[in-house]
Structures are given as C-alpha cells and as structure tokens.
C-alpha cells in the first residue's frame, strides 16, 4: 500500500499469524480470529524492536518467520499445513466474506483519513514533528491498519504469502506511477485484479487460489519493470 516500511512490517506480522491459524484450524474457528491476537503480539514486538534495537527490520522478519513456522508445526497436523501456509479460499462462508468486506472498508477510510500525515512521516519524521503532527499516534494507527489487513489476508493467501499480497501490488504501482494519486489507485486496482484472476484460474485449473493470486501479482510486477522509467 504505502511504503517500504509497510512491506517490511507485513512480513513478520504475516508469519506470526501461523500459530494462530494453526489453533483456529484445529479447533475449527475463524482463521482471522485466530490470527488477530498474534498480529497484536506482532505489533507490540515490532514496537519494542524499533524502540530498543537498531537492527534492521529484516532481522526481525527472519526470527519471527522461523519461530512462527516452528510453533505452528509443533501441533498442527501436516494435512492442514497447506491451509495455514497458503490459505484456502473454499473454506470461506458468505458471512465471513461480508465481515471481511466491512473491515476492509473500515481500514480504507482510516487510511484515507491519515494518508497525508503518514506520507509526511514517511518522508521525514523531523518535518512531520515540525508540522506538529503526533508521530506516535499516526504510526500506531498505521500499524493497526496493517495488522487488520494481515489478519484478513491470511484467509485468502495464508500466513506465508500475506506479506507478498501486501507488498507486491504496491511495488508494481510504484513502478508505474508518476504521482501519489496514480500510486494509490493503481495499487488498489492491481491488488483487486490479481485476486480476481487468481481465483478465476483456481476455478478452472483447481490449483490452490492463494499461490495463484500471488503469482498473478508477481506477473504484473515483472510486466511493470518493462514500463519503469530508468
């Protein structure tokens, strides 16, 4: 969606959801519901990590990824591993779809509201603070929005691929855009089109939808490289 930082944060958050998804699959409740407490844990971890250390976010991604996978596989039956890792769209009920849509709209409006402040903070915290923007508050809202998106994303593409669902359409949009308006619009459209085509291919080919969606997104990214101005 927005920036490099967001893609970096989505990585550890996505992987952290794996134990939550595992629990949800074993006890048969909503995957996003299982993922959510772990996403909250992830936000606290990221917050501590940024406050206490100067390590790059990639280090956290690596640690959390391996720990998340390890914990999930401690108790998750191997037959259900695929669902946890790459999602299973056939499990979705109409009710779940509606709830997901409501949360998506909510996040959309929150992001729309805080967009100028978040962009300014991404450009430079100094000028944002000189403009009397409460950087902590907006960073918290921003992280919260990412957390909700990740928790919803695991339903569609699983704990392994959610970060890609967040990051790839944004990277493609960046390659194609000359301004912020094009950037946010094309990011949105690319995410939608990739999901739509992925699900369509799943219907006709029968491969799991999650990986197909990510592959479509990756395909558009490759195409965008051709158009990218050097």
């Amino acid at each position: 969606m927005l920036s490099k930082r967001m893609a970096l944060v989505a990585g550890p958050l996505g992987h952290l959801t794996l134990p939550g998804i595992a629990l949800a699959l074993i006890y048969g409740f909503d995957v996003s519901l299982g993922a959510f407490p772990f996403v909250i844990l992830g936000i606290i971890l990221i917050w501590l990590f940024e406050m206490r250390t100067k390590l790059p976010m990639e280090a956290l991604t690596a640690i959390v990824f391996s720990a998340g996978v390890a914990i999930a596989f401690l108790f998750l039956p191997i037959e259900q591993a695929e669902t946890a890792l790459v999602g299973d769209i056939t499990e979705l009920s109409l009710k779940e779809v509606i709830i997901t849509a409501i949360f998506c709209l909510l996040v959309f409006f929150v992001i729309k509201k805080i967009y100028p402040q978040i962009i300014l903070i991404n450009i430079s915290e100094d000028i944002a603070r000189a403009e009397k923007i409460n950087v902590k508050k907006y960073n918290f809202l921003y992280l919260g929005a990412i957390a909700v998106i990740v928790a919803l994303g695991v339903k569609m593409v699983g704990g392994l691929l959610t970060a890609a669902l967040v990051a790839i359409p944004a990277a493609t949009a960046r390659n194609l855009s000359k301004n912020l308006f094009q950037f946010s619009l094309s990011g949105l459209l690319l995410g939608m089109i990739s999901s739509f085509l992925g699900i369509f291919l799943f219907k006709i080919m029968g491969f799991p939808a999650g990986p197909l969606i990510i592959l479509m997104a990756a395909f558009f990214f490759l195409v965008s490289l051709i158009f990218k101005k050097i």
Partner: protein
Amino acid sequence: MAESILKVKNLNVKLENEEIIKGLSFEVKKGDVLTILGPNGAGKTVLLKTLLRLLPYRGEIHWLPEIKIGYVPQRLPFIKDIPMNVREFFELKKASGKEIKEILDSVGFEENFLNKKIGELSSGQFQRILVAWALIRNPDVLLFDEPTTGIDIGGEETIYGLLAKLREERNLTILLVTHDLSVVFKFSDYVICLNKCPICQGIPKEVLTLENLSKLYGEEVKFYEHHRH
C-alpha cells in the same frame, strides 16, 4: 530597537552521551538574518532541530509566543522513494491551489511545474521547492539548513539571492546554517561560530577574524576578504 523573536540561554544538547552543543546563549531580533557557521559535525543541524524542539535539551529556548516557524531541512533522502508530484507535496501541508501557485511564483517556478515528479527535480530545484514548502502559511521565521553537498552548480548563488528577496517581500527573520564564509559576509546581520562550543558571535565583520576562524576550522584556514556590500 527591534523586538527579540528568540532568546536562547545556556543551551546544552547531549545525544547518546555525546555533548553536541555546550553552553550556547544568543538572541535573535525580528527581521535579522542570523547565520550559524561551523565545520561539518559542529552541531549546526542539531542546533536548528533543537530550536524546533525536535531534540531533548537543557537550558532555555524562548520563542515569541504564537510565532510561526518554517523549516527547510538539509535533505530528505526518502522522498524519492514515493511517487509524488510537486502539487501533492504541497497538498500534504493542506495548502490551497491559489496559495501553492503564489508561492511557486515567488520562488520562480511556472505553474506547469506542479505536475513534475519530485524524484525528477534537480537538487537545486528541489531545494527551492523546500523553501516554498516552508513558506506555506506565512511563517514569521525561516530556519534554513544548507545541504553540504549535491546542489547543482550555480544553485547556491541563486538560493541565497532568493532568500534575500523573500526576506524583503515577507518580512522574514531567517536563521541559516552554513559552512560557507561568503554567505555570511554577503547575507547576514549576525553570526554564531559553532564547533560544539560557541567560538564567537556578533556582527560578521567584527568577529570573523583570522584568529577566530582558525579556532573554528583548525589552523589551516586561508583567510581572504570578500567584497563587502
């Protein structure tokens, strides 16, 4: 006598256990141009950020109440990662279309510049955009942090010409950071020489003596007088 817009008393800034600024006191009068001169790493940028209350400090900083401050940072390295045009950059500050056009005009850009991508501007153009950005909402004071490198040839000349013009037009008080002596002589009323500790301060002609400059930059300085305006 013009009224005092900023009073700083015994300012100390310590970052990660290193003393960056020690025992600095000065005063800025309305309409003045104050230059902070010093070598790289002398604490000039830190001083500006401290005056903006972006960094923790000990001592006293008193701005005139209700004063509006515009800040031109040294550089914004991450801005080129974001696809954004000039108009959108100004809209982040909630500027109206009319205000943006007026300000672009006063820093010498045509209206069609609004659709240029920020990442495609030259360093000199970008610096002028930053000045214009800081001037949105008519600040009383401009804090200008000079980039140490990377301005296109001729760019430095025009930016100080531009600042002089804006000062006249808008009745600005300017605090600027530089390592360039000629800027001080041409452009400023008051100078603070800073190399962690304040070395000297006063009217440039009086305090920028060979002795003080040697203290500021080390012994190697060759002193040459500039044309005095």
